[in-house]
């Protein structure tokens, strides 16, 4: 398994499923990259938990306004039509089902839709941020992740071993090898890298991959 998508390519693939005008929250870190890859002609409205709708890219270094940041504490800019609001209103948007999509990273995703992405166990300082709210709020919760951990263990699993972020919340996973939906508490394979055999993919996946109809080719440009 030498061939796999880069993080940017995973983000690109996820971005293709975001409709024009969708309200979207991108998790801190890797998921933030999704914003770069919106298809031409589509413009999503990005939400950040700390009280901004419709923010844009980072300003050039030296031009930061540190009162204008995103949930990852990075400096941002505003697009026309942006709005500020306080934290309770911000999480009313999240919890109240007003976001169309949340795209988050993962340590583990289970075939029942459970997600673990906030704690790697009892060591260190625990920190949860807005992840637990996002997984129970957005109309669609998607995950982007490498298909396996750095030491080669599956991140798509039968049941999560790490502390959960949310129960039965994830509906689609974009990985470095495949696009997998979660339906009726099972992984359903939608797309895979064209040269990758189903057997090899299954071998690096911690639970059974169902096939329901055609498996699409996961073809992503160099980005």
């Amino acid at each position, binding site marked *: 398994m030498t061939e796999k998508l880069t993080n940017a390519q995973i983000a690109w693939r996820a971005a293709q499923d975001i409709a*024009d005008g969708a*309200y979207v929250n991108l998790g801190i870190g890797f998921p933030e990259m999704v914003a770069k890859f919106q298809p031409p002609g589509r413009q999503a*409205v990005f939400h950040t938990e700390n009280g901004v*709708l419709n923010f844009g890219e980072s300003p050039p270094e030296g031009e930061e306004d540190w009162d204008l940041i995103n949930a990852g504490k990075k400096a941002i800019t505003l697009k*026309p*039509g942006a709005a500020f*609001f306080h934290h309770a209103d911000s*999480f009313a948007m999240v919890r*109240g089902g007003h976001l169309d999509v949340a795209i988050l990273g993962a340590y583990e995703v289970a075939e029942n839709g459970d997600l673990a992405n906030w704690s790697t166990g009892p060591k260190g300082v625990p920190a949860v941020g807005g992840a637990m709210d996002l997984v129970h*709020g957005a109309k669609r919760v998607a995950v982007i992740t490498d298909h396996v951990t750095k030491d080669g263990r599956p991140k798509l699993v039968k049941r999560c071993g790490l502390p959960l972020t949310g129960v039965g919340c994830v509906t689609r996973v974009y990985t470095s090898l495949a696009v997998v939906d979660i339906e009726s508490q099972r992984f359903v394979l939608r797309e895979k890298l064209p040269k990758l055999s189903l057997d090899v993919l299954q071998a690096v996946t911690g639970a059974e991959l169902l096939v329901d109809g055609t498996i699409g080719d996961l073809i992503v440009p160099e980005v």
Partner: protein
Amino acid sequence: MDKTVSDLATAVAGIEDGMTLMIGGFGGSGAPIELVHALIDRFRATGSPEGLIVINNNAGNGRIGIAAMIDAGMVAKMVCSFPRSADPRAFTEKYRVGQIGLELVPQGTLAERIRAGGAGIPAFYTPTSFGTDLAEGKPVAEFDGRMYVQERWLKSDAALIKAELADTMGNLTYRKAARNFSPLMAAAARLTVVQASKIVRPGGIDPEQIVTPGIFVNRIVEVADAQQEEALMRAGVAYG
């Protein structure tokens, strides 16, 4: 993204029989008269929508707005805190003969239930109404030695809202005390329809001054010289 629609009939399309409908306003302030009358026009032309459950602080005034909806026979039930307004004839007449239902909710509880609906909070506890007839049948609980009543969220199929400024993305401001329930209802409805005195381009409202962010709004129609319910009522106007 442009949420603007060209006319009132299009704005209220999709509001159908039996739906729950939140209507902004406190008395006449903030009452979206033109949207309500557009819905009445459709009912007169097609016989629909009827059997509506309408959520508003009051139950209509005079022979216009919600009162005219009630007169027309479109409303099965009102959810409100104060159905006795200056001229509550429309509601009172139908209520006395059992032709309209009433769920009476304390005003702050009404506001908080709608706020909870928009915020994804299915239930909360309030001291309001504990020990009164309005708490009958509701769960109660003690916190820190005081008794509270459990109340459930209110959501709706649609909301009709009157705003002052809107941009085309649905960001809104309100005018004075016309704000009242409208920002809460905008968030609690599946379909939020707004009449605004003026529609501006995105960026035309200072991001600091937006009261309702566009994420809570689905459709906007411009009604430049909106009618004021209180003035209509005092002039004795009847709609239709």
